[in-house]
């Protein structure tokens, strides 16, 4: 997982509240066996509409999604985060997130910046006034900037630290590799091993 401290990229105004995980990625895509390549699945039903924001060339390369409140509700599928990341998003800005989605995001390196709704509205206006405008996100300072708007955002210390260090669950556990090795040295000899196979 790549560390992220500061990020600047094209902002995408998504004027919708309660964007649930079925809208982020419909269930039909869950049968896939891959972990990557979900960019086509992201908002796939909305993208059939030529007017949808990601179908407008100015926003197509967006990396900062600015959405309405209660983003990521619904099922706990991790695929929702994979789809956003595969498309290229590094940050989602919203005034409220669903808990599980926020938890999954933190583990997968997607920043969820919680900004007050009036500030979200101001950013939307900036992005619509000047399509393709960039948003600057500073995890260290906990700020989001877009044109003349500067807003601070909330994120818990632990998640922020993990994102800035680029630590996923496995990396975190691997920081305890020595403890694991020490434990392994104490395991009794007779505990079974699958290899070499005995039949």
């Amino acid at each position: 997982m790549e560390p992220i401290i500061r990020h600047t990229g094209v902002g995408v105004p998504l004027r919708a509240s309660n964007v649930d995980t079925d809208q982020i990625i419909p269930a039909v895509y869950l049968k896939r066996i891959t972990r990557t390549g979900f960019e086509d699945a992201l908002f796939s039903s909305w993208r059939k509409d030529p007017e949808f924001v990601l179908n407008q060339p100015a926003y197509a390369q967006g990396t900062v999604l600015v959405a309405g409140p209660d983003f990521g509700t619904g099922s706990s599928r991790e695929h929702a985060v994979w789809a956003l990341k595969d498309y290229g998003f590094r940050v989602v800005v919203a005034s409220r997130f669903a808990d599980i989605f926020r938890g999954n995001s933190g583990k997968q390196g997607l920043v969820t910046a919680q900004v007050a709704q009036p500030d979200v509205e101001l950013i939307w206006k900036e992005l619509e006034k000047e399509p393709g405008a960039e948003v600057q996100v500073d995890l260290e300072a906990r700020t989001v900037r877009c044109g003349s708007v500067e807003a601070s955002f909330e994120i818990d210390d632990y998640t922020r630290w993990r994102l800035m260090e680029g630590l996923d669950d496995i990396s975190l556990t691997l920081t305890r590799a020595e403890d694991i090795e020490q434990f392994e040295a104490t395991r009794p000899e007779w505990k079974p091993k699958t290899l070499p196979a005995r039949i």
Partner: protein
Amino acid sequence: MADKPLTMAEKVWREHVVVPGEEKGGQRTPDLLYIDLHLVHEVTSPQAFEGLRLADRPVRRPDLTIATEDHNTPTLEIDKPIADPISRKQVDTLRANAEEFGIRLHSLGDDDQGIVHVVGPQLGLTQPGMTVVCGDSHTSTHGAFGALAMGIGTSEVEHVLATQTLSLKPFKTMAITVEGTLKPGVSSKDIILAVIAKIGTGGGQGYVLEYRGSAIEQLSMDARMTICNMSIEAGARAGMIAPDETTFDYIKGRPHAPQGADWDAAVENWRALRTDAGAEFDAEVVIDADALEPFVTWGTNPGQGVSLSDTVPAPEDFDDPVDRESAERALKYMDLAPGTPMRDIRVDTVFLGSCTNSRMEDLRAAAGIIRGREKDPQVRMIVVPGSQRVRLQAEAEGLDQVFKEFGAEWRFAGCSMCLGMNPDQLQPGERCASTSNRNFEGRQGKGGRTHLVSPVVAAATAVRGTLSAPSDVLSTEPQPA
């Protein structure tokens, strides 16, 4: 200070803590636990392996990992390519991943292939006091050996592959004491169905269940596995049974059992796993084995069950509005009228199989009922051994002939109609007496209706065509073959 008496689950847990959790903001962070055995199959592993590849990580302990193909595999014509493209892709992906990461795999056609929860114990890889995980909820099966065995999700599968550990939140303990002796025709499946009907499908949430008492002690390992298997259907995190001589006898001599001096050391350790006298459980449930009768479900969750001698309940029988509503929906889906005697319900299909009931004892018991009898001509019966070893052993004992002469289909090993990921599925509206573990809507095929039963009830039902107890059949003389 004297050591606090501990339950078996707490002992196994304590022996596996690599890094203890810490108090943070009034909350305890999870303990990091070491995993002794990781079982892998084709459905929940592809993205875990891909995650490893993307991060360029190896599997930490291939020698504590074993894979088998089961959920998608066909049970007929296993030498032909798998017809369904998604199933084939999952199986092919597992083969490629096992090869790349150096993991032992038992593929379709291999003598040790079979349902992951049948294969582990059979190879002697499941032993008391171990931590066992698998990306499958019925991993609780392995608790029959006194192992702490839990189902996990795909990202946890990746975590275990990479680190051989798992962060786990603390659990509560529940003792389920079953005293007495089962009547003839009543089996361990009836015990667990009665437990789930009593505590409900959410009654075990957050708990590790420990089954104990004289009725449990009398059970064989095959029968104990049936009970632990369905712990998850009560919402529990795991189910366990204390290891005893029955357990040791089962393990001894199996391919991966400890040998020589190791065996003695292992048994000494295993004997110490029992729950200490005076240890406290967070909850206790008592079941009277003498009073149990063959059990059968009428609804669409495993808690919706009654004795075979009962009738289909009415929604008004339930005080709780949620239960009432769910009964109403279930009766509609199952197309059953309240008040119908369970024994009057006709079935189209009988499925003998799944990780709940597909071991030697299950096949022997079912064969014992049907031997020399005739199948109801309108009923289709499918027998799917849990593993190829079980299939071979059954054939050596001539059980395949008993099933075939009866008119049942004798298949190759796999999950099969337990979840209908392969071609073995119910048709819409079809009714099935099934020895599996889940009677959810559409579980065995879109629109299919499932009644969960024991192997002997399944066999008796195939004879009479309606849900039946073994005693209904045994009162008639078998026909001379």
